[in-house]
């Protein structure tokens, strides 16, 4: 089985063949997986597989039984599903913002642009279980009255984009997309859109601009996409995993989904674990699972080393020293109590050989590189911050630099159009806060306290 899916997913790329399967089964004993439910099948991405597991039945049921939108939205609300794109906004609530009555086309957008370092879960959904995403989007479209949908897929994963395009063709062919579905007057066209390398397009309004054929520059909100989205029309944007959770919720009911998790964090969730672990990959686990269990599933720290720090939800969430995360649970409240946040569930694990100064340099380079450049604090600030850290790594740091870095980051944060500014500030602030001695050592000695280089 593994052979086959790997082959399908990577086509000609030979290197992955012998590699460990990046996706691992989870603790949902006796329970089907939620967003990756086809994973253990032979041909996970195929329509036949998905149908065999009850796929598209929910869409068909809702449409043919003419289930009313408020009822569906209510189930989503009950499910406690919170946006899986990182901000954790309750999905049911977001859906209720879409105007009910609107004279013209409404749009549905799926955000598969994951480019936040350490995040790679949506890719597995579109390559192993694309039809569930399609069904989830179709249900959302039915609920929200959207006529056209786009799934915006990260530029670098071309092969997975093609898998998704193929799945769309299959779904159209089978009558799950297109005009007058199941003989109803509900019509929905869904298209794949290919990004071309810009992290900022993960931000929903930048993504919308990009769909329109422009630079990915975020729009100022308000107006929010629900009133002014794609082509200026009402648009609902959700993350891939959010949509892919919908068919399961429809099948089992909102409460069942909520019960998978803990209060305030419904469901199970994909956690992308990368960095210094033995078995990096995606783990679909219940919300509220202790960090330790997740780390264990990922094979623990590699090479028998010690845990030093974890970035729990992608670089836009604060880094946590080992002691802070060790007893935390993996859910919204659990991580926020422990001093960080869940983000997109992108856990980057660092062992005790990691130099925090150099790591921060790479992260601030990322934000500097990826700033779209429209707003002053982010455009000018991220470059400034990066240059200071670069100077420190080059051995030319000054003690005042640390306060300056903190001050600059505070001056970027909260003063920009989109949250990239805040995201850029977070690592700087949290790295310096938790690992200040390492920075001071570097400045004093012109070299790393950890690797001596």
């Amino acid at each position, binding site marked *: 089985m593994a052979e086959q899916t790997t082959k399908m997913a990577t086509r000609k790329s030979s*290197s992955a063949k012998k590699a460990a399967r990046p996706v691992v089964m989870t603790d949902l004993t006796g329970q089907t997986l939620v967003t990756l439910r086809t994973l253990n099948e032979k041909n996970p991405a195929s329509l036949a597989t998905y149908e065999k597991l009850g796929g598209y039945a929910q869409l068909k049921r809702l449409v043919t039984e003419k289930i009313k939108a408020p009822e569906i939205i209510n189930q989503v609300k009950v499910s406690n599903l919170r946006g899986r794109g990182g901000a954790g906004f309750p999905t049911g609530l977001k859906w209720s913002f879409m105007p009910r009555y609107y004279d013209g086309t409404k749009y549905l957008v799926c955000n598969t642009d994951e480019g936040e370092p350490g995040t790679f879960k949506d890719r597995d959904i579109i390559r192993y279980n694309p039809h569930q995403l399609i069904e989830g989007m179709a249900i959302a479209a039915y609920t929200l009255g959207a006529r056209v949908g786009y799934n915006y897929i990260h530029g670098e994963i071309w092969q997975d984009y093609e898998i998704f395009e193929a799945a769309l063709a299959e779904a159209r062919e089978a009558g799950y997309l297109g005009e007058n579905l199941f003989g109803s007057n509900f019509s929905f066209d869904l298209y794949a*859109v290919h*990004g*071309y*390398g810009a992290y900022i397009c993960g931000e929903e309004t930048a993504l919308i601009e990009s*769909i329109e054929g*422009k630079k990915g520059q975020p729009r100022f909100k308000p107006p929010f996409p629900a009133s002014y989205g794609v082509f200026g029309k009402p648009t609902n944007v959700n993350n891939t995993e959010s949509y892919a959770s919908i068919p399961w919720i429809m099948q089992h009911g909102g409460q069942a989904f909520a019960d998978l998790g803990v209060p305030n964090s419904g469901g199970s969730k994909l956690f992308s674990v990368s960095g210094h672990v033995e078995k990096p990959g995606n783990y679909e686990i219940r919300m509220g699972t202790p960090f330790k269990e997740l780390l264990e599933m990922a094979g623990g720290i590699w090479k028998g080393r010690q845990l030093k720090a974890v970035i729990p939800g992608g670089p836009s969430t604060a880094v946590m020293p080992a002691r802070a995360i060790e007893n935390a649970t993996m859910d919204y409240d659990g991580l926020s109590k422990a001093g960080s946040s869940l983000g997109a569930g992108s856990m980057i694990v660092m062992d005790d050989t990691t130099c925090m100064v150099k790591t921060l340099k790479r992260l601030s380079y990322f934000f500097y590189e990826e700033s779209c450049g429209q707003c002053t604090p982010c455009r000018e600030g991220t470059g400034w911050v990066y240059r200071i850290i670069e100077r420190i790594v080059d051995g030319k740091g000054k003690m005042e630099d640390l306060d300056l870095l903190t001050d600059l980051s505070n001056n970027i944060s909260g003063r920009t159009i989109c949250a990239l500014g805040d995201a850029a500030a977070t690592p700087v602030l949290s790295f310096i806060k938790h690992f200040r001695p390492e920075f001071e050592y570097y400045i004093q000695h012109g070299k790393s306290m950890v690797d001596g280089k």
Partner: protein
Amino acid sequence: MLSAEAIEKIEYELAKYPKDRRQAAVMSALRIVQIERGWLSKESVTDVAKYLGIPEIAAMEVASFYNMYDLQPVGQYKITVCTNISCMLRGSDEIVDHLQHTLGVGFNEVTADGKFCIKEGECMGCCGGAPLLHVNNTHMHEFLTTEKVDALLEELNKG
């Protein structure tokens, strides 16, 4: 002038959007033309803009914004190595050093035979397979080791 194949592919993309929103297809159109011609010269960007009926500068804004467009000639195989945090933690530096050493070029340089160039990439959304690289924007190679890189180069050299 765009080739007939390029036009066919662009038309496929255009069909995804409302008729009066031809600009929406600009990213795909640029991608299609880049794949066909190797890189995006000024003429290529102009061709795309003309075909879509949008201002040339609007097409250039897009072409210059996204990382994967090449506004300068690249090698036959453009190798983009992710050096972001998850890859860095698992040794992307070593992969980069190895590539640069083997090919004798630095980032953004093309080998003398025009065959290869290396670029530094940002997160490709596949961090579970770190370290990794992709070739010509399309083929992803994960869980890299220096041996795997050698094998890949050999394969590409043959092809």
